């Protein structure tokens, strides 16, 4: 035998590398195949839809038409009417969401910090959260008027309560043994709050922030249905009454995009601050 050990090791290493390369390639091929099929599916659906309307199997009046939806969306990009409505809705939703998140987590923290106060007011928070937000719309309308404040309040109401209840509940879930441990190690109450309770509740708080995005948009759009002459909620209602279904679809797509942008921001926060817990 003329082959040395080191040569043998080199050969084996090369073979290993080849094998790993092959496995990685197969994996990549599989991912591309799935992606390809997804694209083919949506293109197929849109093509069928477009053709159906063009040859007259289906009525544009009732279901809209992809090419016209694209036309409306393209207008948005160059600053059409749709964009102005989207800006209003975005402003209302983000304001309601932001206020809800900040105040909801704050009151959750406060109720943990003052346990007796927390236990006293907890049932009221639960009772208020049981009121369907839509049912409050007429009330907010009277109190806050026809303007932007009513829509913000409707988005805010659900976000605030979801954030509050989640924050308070997850702070109370802080493992008692962990609190004992910190106490024995000499932690002050504020240190327990900052170094134990808050980090352990963070994954749940961030998950609630994700869910709340949908609530903020829903509340805002409902507000725009009730009384408005601006915003995507108003626009969908108005367009549907005129049987301009392509415009309705375009507005919905813009709403989805807004929601996805907000989701990706919160997801990034979650990855940054709470990736240690994937269950929440």
């Amino acid at each position, binding site marked *: 035998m003329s082959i040395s050990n080191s040569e043998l090791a080199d050969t084996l290493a090369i073979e290993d590398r080849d094998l790993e390369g092959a496995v990685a390639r197969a994996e990549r091929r599989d991912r591309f195949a799935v992606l390809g099929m997804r694209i083919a599916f949506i293109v197929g659906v849109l093509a069928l839809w477009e053709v159906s309307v063009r040859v007259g199997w289906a009525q544009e009046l009732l279901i809209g038409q992809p090419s016209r939806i694209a036309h409306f969306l393209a207008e948005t990009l160059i600053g059409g009417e749709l964009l102005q409505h989207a800006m209003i809705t975005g402003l209302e939703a983000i304001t309601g969401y932001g206020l809800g998140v900040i105040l909801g987590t704050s009151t959750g923290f406060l109720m943990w910090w003052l346990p007796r106060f927390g236990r006293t007011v907890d049932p009221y928070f639960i009772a208020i959260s049981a009121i369907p937000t839509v049912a409050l719309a007429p009330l907010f309308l009277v109190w806050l008027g026809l303007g932007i404040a009513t829509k913000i309040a409707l988005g805010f109401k659900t976000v605030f309560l979801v954030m509050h209840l989640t924050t308070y509940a997850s702070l109370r879930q802080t*493992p008692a*043994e*962990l609190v*004992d*441990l*910190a*106490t*024995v*190690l*000499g*932690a*002050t109450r504020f*240190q327990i709050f900052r*170094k*134990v309770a808050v*980090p*352990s509740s*963070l994954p749940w708080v961030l998950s609630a922030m994700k869910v709340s995005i949908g609530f903020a948009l829903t509340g805002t759009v409902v507000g725009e249905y009730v009384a408005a002459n601006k915003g995507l909620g108003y626009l969908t209602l108005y367009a549907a009454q005129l049987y301009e279904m392509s415009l309705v679809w375009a507005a919905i797509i813009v709403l989805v995009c807004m929601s996805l942008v907000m989701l990706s921001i919160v997801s990034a926060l979650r990855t940054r601050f*709470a990736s*240690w*817990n994937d269950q929440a």
Partner: protein
Amino acid sequence: MSFDQSAIKLCGVVVKFASRAGVVTALRDLSFDVKRSEFVSLVGPSGCGKSTCLGLVAGLRTPTRGDVFVEGRRVNGPSRDVGFMLQKDLLMPWRTVLENVIFGLELRGKAKAEMRDLAESYLRSFGLLEFANAKPSHLSGGMRQRISLIRTLLTDPKIILLDEPFSALDFQTRLILEDEIWSLLKSEGRTVVLITHDINEAIAMSDRILVMSKRPGTLKREITVELARVAGSPLEARNRLEFGAYFADVWKTIDVDLQLRAS
């Protein structure tokens, strides 16, 4: 015995607490003391108040009646003299190994560099330095329990309370950790109180075993062992001829309770 010799002293301790079923007596008239550098185990049936007892020494709980002294001072709240380690390692999953280990020092406002040096030297001695920046979830149960011990040791407590720290580990890891922890704590001259359900473990590690009665718990018997001290390590202690006799003795003491419960 005078106070200056005992690390821990319980005098006529009674603990009662309110529950849904009414007032429960967890401990009745419990008295014992533990000398400096002594290794004492508490054994007894489940729910006999062993953990309550450690809670008193750690300053997490106050006795309804009676007194608890640590290092000659009456306990009122957590003290720097006492550290504890539980069955659950209680590592914080959002912190790295190093950040977990320095937690106690961080709470006391130690300088960053100082904490780091100290932590790294301990991690190195346990062969865990390479995991300093890993998250605990990537480590085995034995490693996690070692890290939990280092966290306790870094704050340099004179007394260490161990509440079933080995019971979640597999048998081999348990034997190895018993040896490691025993020799380390002995060489540093720390006072240790161990709670365990494992009679073998209590005999292998202790200088003295305190057998408690079932609830409401009180001291039933104390048995001086010192096998590990004589043999040099808990593992060696298990090979001693007397080991079996100690086991029978402790078992019999606990067994009386089992019969009482059956009747």
